[in-house]
């Protein structure tokens, strides 16, 4: 037994989760897939007094594809999202990003909400949420509130969710332009590891090949996943020539503040940020053109 002792409760419903969180507050942690929390507990980086297991709550596990968005329950497993064709058609970035997340065994347990709440700045799903402007529905005993990704991610491994709140569902905006393309790419030490730097992009063009909307972002390049709405807005109206795309990617890289560690210097990460942003934008552009 490697984790420090804790009390365990398997919640059967969301209202039970809220009641347990209200009672135990800061001492309690929600246990979803456990693919990040359990290792952290094994290393005793966290020692919660209570674990509230939310794996057996049916209302937290669903995928609903609607007209202008897709909704996923927070405890929906990554493997389920990865395999859903309707979701992949409406929000393709999710499946594209999941190809880089962990391995078969971890995606079988890992959940969408767990990745977002863990808020690792190098992780793939938080980057997708930031780029698409996903909205998080949080529930506590006193009701619900919705936070945009930008407000939700507050720092490295930190979110604005209160200790009495449970992430209930995530709303992923779906773009309705016919010629929409997206792409996800990253560099990591080994495939399946957290990214050294990751880039995600989504582009929509009109019938003449002019950009009507663009969004892109970078992971591993700051304390939270980063999106660059102002730089992306400059792409609108252009034909997305390589020079324009490279200029946008370069501008974004300049804005990043990556850290240095054993694997890569800040300078190298900033270099990767520019290269990968351009790569993701170009790939998204080609997919938009071919639709």
């Amino acid at each position, binding site marked *: *037994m*490697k*984790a*420090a*002792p*804790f*009390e*365990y409760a*398997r919640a059967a419903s969301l209202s039970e989760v809220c009641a347990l969180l209200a009672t135990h507050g800061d001492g309690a942690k929600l*246990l979803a897939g*456990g*693919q990040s929390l*359990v*290792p952290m507990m*094994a*290393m005793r980086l966290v020692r919660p*007094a209570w*674990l509230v*297991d939310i*794996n057996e709550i049916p209302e937290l596990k669903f995928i609903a594809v609607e007209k202008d968005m897709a909704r996923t329950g927070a405890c929906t497993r990554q*493997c389920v999202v990865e395999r859903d064709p309707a979701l992949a058609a409406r929000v393709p970035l999710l499946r594209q990003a999941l190809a880089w997340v*962990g*391995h*078969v*065994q*971890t995606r*079988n*347990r890992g959940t969408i909400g767990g990745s977002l709440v863990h808020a690792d700045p190098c992780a793939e799903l938080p980057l997708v949420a930031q780029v698409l402007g996903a909205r998080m529905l949080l529930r506590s005993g006193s009701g619900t509130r919705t936070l945009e990704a930008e407000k939700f991610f507050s720092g490295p491994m930190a979110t604005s969710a209160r200790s009495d709140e449970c992430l209930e569902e995530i709303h992923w905006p779906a773009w309705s332009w016919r010629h929409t393309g997206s792409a996800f790419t990253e560099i990591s030490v080994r*495939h*399946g590891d957290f990214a050294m730097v990751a880039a995600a992009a989504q582009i929509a063009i009109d019938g003449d090949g002019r950009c009507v909307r663009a969004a892109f972002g970078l992971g591993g390049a700051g304390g939270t996943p980063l999106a660059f709405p102002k730089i992306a807005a400059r792409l609108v109206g252009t034909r997305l020539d390589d020079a324009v795309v490279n200029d946008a990617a370069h501008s974004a890289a300049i804005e990043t503040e990556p850290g240095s560690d054993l694997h890569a210097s800040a300078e190298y990460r900033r270099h990767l940020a520019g290269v990968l942003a351009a790569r993701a934008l170009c790939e998204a552009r080609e997919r938009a053109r071919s639709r």
Partner: protein
Amino acid sequence: MSGTLHEISIEVNGKLRKAQVPARLSLVDWLREDLCLTGTHIGCEHGVCGACSVMLDGEPVRSCLMYAVQANGHRVATVEGLAKPDGSMSVLQDSFCETHGLQCGYCTPGMLIASQALLNSNPNPTEAQIRDAIGGNLCRCTGYQQIVEAVQLAAKPAAFPLLG
């Protein structure tokens, strides 16, 4: 407060097993220490090496990243559950022997679970699909080539006329 025991009832390799466990007991520790199913190996104990892979409700997962109490009411299959009812090796296990898909054997139970899970859902995988399926399992002996060949042999024995 740490003394609380939880009742669990888990189907392991087709047999219902009941126990009382502390919440912090990992699934792999329960399988090895309490049920003496030592075929499942413990490597890193934080979800990196894949040696502890087992099937949970038919899907491969890391048993070091689950507490035993979480598996309550579920189905677990370990490497011991792969053999045929008479105790002889499965087709996949035989293939590992044939192609020399193991040396020290530490990663083997995890490799067998990962590749059996692949073959269950995809009986005719490509080499890329095999490599993806075992991508979460570390082997320091074989260089992976013979493991890939073992899975290919199990899927398509006719492609290896000199073996078997």
